[in-house]
């Protein structure tokens, strides 16, 4: 197909120049020149050398400015090793990845946010096991809690990359100060505060679970957080692996505990209406009433920091901030619910393994963190490199020895439940269906 040949070289150069220009223009780039492959900066990449001119494709759900940040984060790696990383992000990632893999057009690497999906591809024999180097790097930098989510049937497939902490309650430090409220550190304080705010005529909590084709997930996060707070971590693991049925009384207890807040007309839905308005309020705008004082508390993950209206200051002394969603029984430790993506490989060429290893390294975690808006459970991540206060708090929680981390349960379950009936069940539950019926329905949908 010679007719299709094109001046790739020239274009690549133009692209690199363009990127370099835009990076300096943004003022975030450091003033290294990109053409010095042998310079001191490249020393760190020595072990990835030998793949000059090779290309690695990565597919993920990360788009727009966050995708730019990714490109920036591995730029030095590309310059030093000569490996070209071609990242593509899509909003249809989960469905499209399956189509591409089945269609024989899999990317080299994919950032998969669901361990359940990693398992599905691993079981189908589509994934390549991680190389010894990658495994060693991952074991050095991540805790066993995290590694087990990248492992299927004893085989290690991929290290975690970015992470988020979901056990957060967003509030307005400004309003709290004005009203003389204090940040609750125990469950009882949280409920007492909610009652106090409710008595003052404001609905204390706001929530929203609408998220286009993923509607329902914020409610499942609530249930998961309550599972971790009412049950032991072991019961939580049994629940996500179907060791106990979905309609077990223990699960019902957790759901009802969430319902004590979410389905309490006195508590919700500040700024939007009644309980039912939760299901049509988009998760992106669910917390906004906090900025206008129509709502005081909003349980949502660390990444909600990006959802606030422009001009909102996110800091401990700012317009909005988050506090840790307190445990019910502090004796059981500090349960932390979170999520993250895993770097799984569909190819085992040396350059692919080199990139996979590099992404598990401390160098990468720090390189990405410096650019902003990113959290990782990587132990080498230096808190000083994390610019944003909520991300700092998240990293602190992830690195805290007392934390008992568990992955978002709906991402661990089979997709038919985790992204299907569990979401739908929670929508029905918000809309008035009773707990027992909903749990029974989800249980019967679990694939045999």
């Amino acid at each position, binding site marked *: 197909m010679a007719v299709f040949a094109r001046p790739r070289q020239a274009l690549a150069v133009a692209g690199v120049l363009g990127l370099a220009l835009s990076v300096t223009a943004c003022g975030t780039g450091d003033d290294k020149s990109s053409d010095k492959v042998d310079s001191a900066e490249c020393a760190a990449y020595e072990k990835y050398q030998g793949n000059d001119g090779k290309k690695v494709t990565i597919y993920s759900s990360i788009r727009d400015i966050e995708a730019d940040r990714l490109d920036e984060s591995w730029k030095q790696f590309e310059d030093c090793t000569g490996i070209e990383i071609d990242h593509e992000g899509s909003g249809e990632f989960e469905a*499209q990845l399956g189509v591409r893999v089945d269609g024989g057009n899999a990317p080299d690497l994919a950032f998969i946010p669901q361990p359940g999906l990693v398992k599905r591809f691993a079981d189908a024999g589509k994934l390549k096991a991680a190389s010894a180097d990658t495994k060693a790097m991952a074991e050095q930098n991540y805790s066993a809690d995290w590694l087990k989510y990248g492992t299927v049937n004893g085989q290690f497939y991929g290290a975690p990359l970015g992470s988020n902490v979901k056990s957060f309650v967003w509030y307005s430090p400004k309003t709290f100060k004005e009203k003389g409220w204090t940040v609750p550190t125990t469950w009882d304080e949280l409920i007492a505060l909610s009652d106090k705010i409710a008595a003052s005529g404001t609905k204390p909590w706001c929530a929203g679970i609408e998220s*286009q084709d993923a509607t329902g997930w914020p409610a499942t996060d609530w249930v998961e957080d309550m599972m971790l707070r009412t049950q032991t971590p072991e019961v939580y693991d049994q629940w996500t692996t179907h060791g106990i049925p979905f309609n077990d009384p223990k699960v019902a207890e957790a759901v009802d505990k969430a319902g004590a807040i979410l389905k309490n007309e006195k508590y919700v839905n500040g700024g939007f209406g009644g309980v039912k308005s939760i299901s049509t309020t988009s998760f992106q705008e669910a917390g906004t009433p906090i900025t206008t004082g129509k709502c005081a508390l909003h349980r949502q993950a660390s990444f909600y920091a990006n959802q606030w209206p422009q001009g909102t200051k996110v800091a401990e002394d700012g317009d909005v901030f988050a506090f840790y969603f307190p445990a019910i029984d502090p004796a059981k430790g500090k349960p932390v619910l979170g999520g993250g993506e895993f770097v799984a490989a569909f190819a085992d060429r040396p350059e692919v393994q080199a990139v996979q290893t590099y992404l598990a390294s401390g160098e990468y975690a720090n390189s990405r963190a410096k650019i902003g808006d990113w959290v990782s459970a990587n132990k080498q991540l230096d808190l000083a490199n994390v610019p944003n206060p909520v991300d700092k708090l998240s990293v602190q929680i992830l690195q805290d020895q007392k934390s008992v981390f568990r992955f978002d349960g709906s991402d661990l379950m089979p997709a038919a439940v985790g992204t299907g009936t569990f979401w739908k069940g929670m929508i029905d539950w918000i809309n008035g269906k009773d707990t027992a019926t909903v749990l029974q329905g989800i249980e019967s949908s679990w694939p045999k």
Partner: protein
Amino acid sequence: MTTTTPTLPAGAQATGKTTTTAGRVRKRLNSRTATLISIVIAVFWTIPTFGLFVSSFRPENEIKTTGWWTFFTNPQFTLENYQEVLFGRSSSSGQLANYFINSLAITIPSVLFPIAFASLAAYALAWINFRGRDWAYIAIFALQIVPLQMALVPLLKFFSTGVTLGGVTLMPAWDLVDEQKFAQVWFAHTCFALPFAVFLLHNFIAQLPKDLMEAARVDGATHPKIFRTIVLPLITPALAAFGIFQFLWVWNDLLVALIFAGGSSETAPLTVRLAEMAGSRGNEWQRLTSGAFVSIVVPLIVFLSLQRYFVRGLLAGSVKG
């Protein structure tokens, strides 16, 4: 589908001419009422779109907290949404103009190929005598129901691994990179468009006057000649009609482009870019308000410029002389 010239009821003929003054007045009134009603409905039909149009000039916070109609009592005007869509914040995704050209490069061949292949096939099914042609037509018609979602994986496999039958490679993998992937998208769109195209065009071609065809055959014209010199000119309006619809479908398609072209700025069309603009978590959907209008410009131009073919008579062939 025969259409005979309707015979008028005897009663109607008996009443005779009513071109009286009163009749003319009534006629004019009728046409006035018709104009009025049709304009009212058109306005009503456009209100939702108009709301989007107004919203596209409002600041993000306003869009998300108050109704678009408050714009008229409390006008807050901004071009920021358009600025973000046209010039973007994301450096890696490049300029919108790039995606515009991708969309054009995808759409034009994806409209031409099905038109050509479908009109050839429709002609054969309508005017060439061969065994099993009715069943062939019915089969192609029925293929309209196959949901294209189910065709994505096998078609992608066809491109990425080729065709091997009993160890013999009938067709190697395509292995296309960058803009060469357009070829895959053309191929896919053509496949998916054919059943409807054949169905639509067959309807017109089959109703061309039989005498015309037979006369041409008697004169010794071959099928290719009849097709080129007689059929094609007669069905131009139908081709234009199908062309418009196919243009709209391809231009607005997201799924096929996503699978076969990928999402990089080298091949992704406008729709893929617009969907991305909502941001990783879908929170920037105010950009879509302006994005929708940026992407609507070309289809509207196409519609307006081809509309005259409709007026000339889309179904010119449907009414036999």
